[in-house]
């Protein structure tokens, strides 16, 4: 058998990723055991990835996957039943196989995908577990791929996912959308997990060639969510925020992987198409009424992205948006960004004064970013010795290598001017 060309391979992979949550939804719905269905679908996906490139994609790929996965579930249940002597389950499940494959063609799987997403982002799970489970169950990634993306051994990731599934099982949530009165809260949990997934990818800009890029995966999932609940302003806001942030990706790091801050980036390298899409989304979302935190953050990103240069940025507008955001959430990082915006509008002294007040917040007192910001503002105010001292303190405290290198360079540069 000749090796299939990479393009076919990529097409098959995309198709499998697209179908994964639909197949899992169908299988879970019918067998009622999410954990078993999830394992079975993972096996079916691996089987398809091995066979389709050589044998060709079956006429009805979704039905094929549901059939193979269902067979695995039945095998699993049989084995379990033999162990536990629960014959009645077999009786009800065995004839279901044909039914399963057939029923899967009935709807487009959209509702099931949404149910899965909400389930995987269950508030009972830690964010790290929810991200991993979402990537596997909804994103259709293999455990090995997820492990690589997080730079942990595969066995560690397998364990994390398996424990997450057990927690969901133990919580006894039915495979259905949450009740109306819980919907807002559960959707917020989904958005939070996807936001963290995006940040994980955005922050870990290591030189390693991970095939799976967490930021892109988070965007793909939010896009999918946006298709499923097109009228939700915060879903739109989050998608816009990701697009507007990711648009700067190419300009964000230098040739050696070093960090380039927003004001020093080559704006010609920003992705204009992504910016246009993000701006259009946030513009459509904002007038819808109840403005949420993601929409505000997206609006701030949009102001940055639309500015022709750092100096020409509309800082008064950014300050106003941060003030709104600050009223909405008691987040120390928002408060810090608000102080920066304040300094940009009213001068470094105003920003430093605000910073002094913020440093009293226990959550910020030891945070390296306070020192980094103080360094920036002191440098702007012309106090180079003090600026240097704070850059170095920040460098000592950060746990990110690119950030530490950046801060060290900032401090060193002040010696040479």
């Amino acid at each position, binding site marked *: 058998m000749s090796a299939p060309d990479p393009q076919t391979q990529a097409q098959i992979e995309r198709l499998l990723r697209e179908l994964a949550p639909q197949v899992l939804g169908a299988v879970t719905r019918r067998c009622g055991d999410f954990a078993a269905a999830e394992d079975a679908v993972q096996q079916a996906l691996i089987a398809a990835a091995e066979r389709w490139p050589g044998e060709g994609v079956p006429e009805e790929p979704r039905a094929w996957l549901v059939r193979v996965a269902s067979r695995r579930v039945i095998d699993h249940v049989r084995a379990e039943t033999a162990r536990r002597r629960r014959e009645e389950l077999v009786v009800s499940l065995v004839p279901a196989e044909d039914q399963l494959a057939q029923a899967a063609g009935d709807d487009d799987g959209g509702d099931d995908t949404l149910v899965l997403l909400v389930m995987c982002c269950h508030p009972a799970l830690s964010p790290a577990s929810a991200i991993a489970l979402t990537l596997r169950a909804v994103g259709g990634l293999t455990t090995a791929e997820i492990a690589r993306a997080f730079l942990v051994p595969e066995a560690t990731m397998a364990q994390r996912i398996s424990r997450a599934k057990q927690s969901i099982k133990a919580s006894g949530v039915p495979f259905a959308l949450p009740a109306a009165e819980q919907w807002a809260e559960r959707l917020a949990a989904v958005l939070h997990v996807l936001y963290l997934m995006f940040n994980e990818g955005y922050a870990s800009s290591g030189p390693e060639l991970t095939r799976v890029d967490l930021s892109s995966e988070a965007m793909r999932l939010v896009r999918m969510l946006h298709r499923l609940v097109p009228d939700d302003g915060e879903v739109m806001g989050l998608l816009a925020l990701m697009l507007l942030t990711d648009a700067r990706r190419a300009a964000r790091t230098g040739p*050696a992987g*070093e960090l380039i801050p927003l004001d020093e980036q080559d704006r010609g390298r920003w992705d204009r198409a992504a910016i246009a899409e993000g701006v259009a989304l946030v513009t459509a979302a904002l007038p819808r009424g109840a403005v949420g935190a993601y929409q505000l953050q997206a609006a701030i990103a949009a102001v940055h992205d639309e500015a022709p240069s750092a100096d020409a940025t509309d800082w008064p507008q950014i300050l106003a948006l941060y003030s709104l955001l600050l009223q909405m959430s008691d987040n120390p990082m928002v408060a810090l960004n608000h102080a920066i915006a304040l300094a940009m509008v009213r001068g470094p002294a105003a920003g430093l004064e605000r910073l002094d007040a913020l440093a009293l917040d226990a959550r910020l007192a030891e945070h390296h970013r306070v020192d980094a910001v103080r360094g920036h503002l002191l440098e702007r105010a012309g106090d180079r010795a003090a600026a240097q001292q704070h850059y*170095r303190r920040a460098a000592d405290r950060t746990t990110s290598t690119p950030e530490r290198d950046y801060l060290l360079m900032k401090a*060193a540069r002040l010696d040479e001017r």
Partner: protein
Amino acid sequence: MKYMLMMHTPAGGPYQIARWPQQDIQAHIAFMKNFAKALGASGELVAAEGLAGPDQARRVQAGSDGKPITDGVFPEAKEFLAGYWIVDVDRPERAYEIAAQASAAPGQGGKPLNLVIEVREVMSAPRDPAE
């Protein structure tokens, strides 16, 4: 066989690299990046991590109740672990060679730092005596 190469840097103020001129810092960072890349390319790199500064470190001991007692930083330490590499090599001498390269990372004015690198074999399953 796997070896852990641990890089120690003298105390006396965390990250003295912070006092270097810009170009020396740049050269040092570039060296470390290329070093990791070369080890990856030779197929010998298992893992490498730089560690956060000693400001972030805590000493932990179990108390009589088994609960952790954390202590601040280590003010008395003469040097601290700054980072490590785990390499998979076929003989100990190769691990020493790699350690020597890391030790000679450029410092201020491009002069080799000659930092102490502690080389420890990583425990593994017993080796086949016929090997």
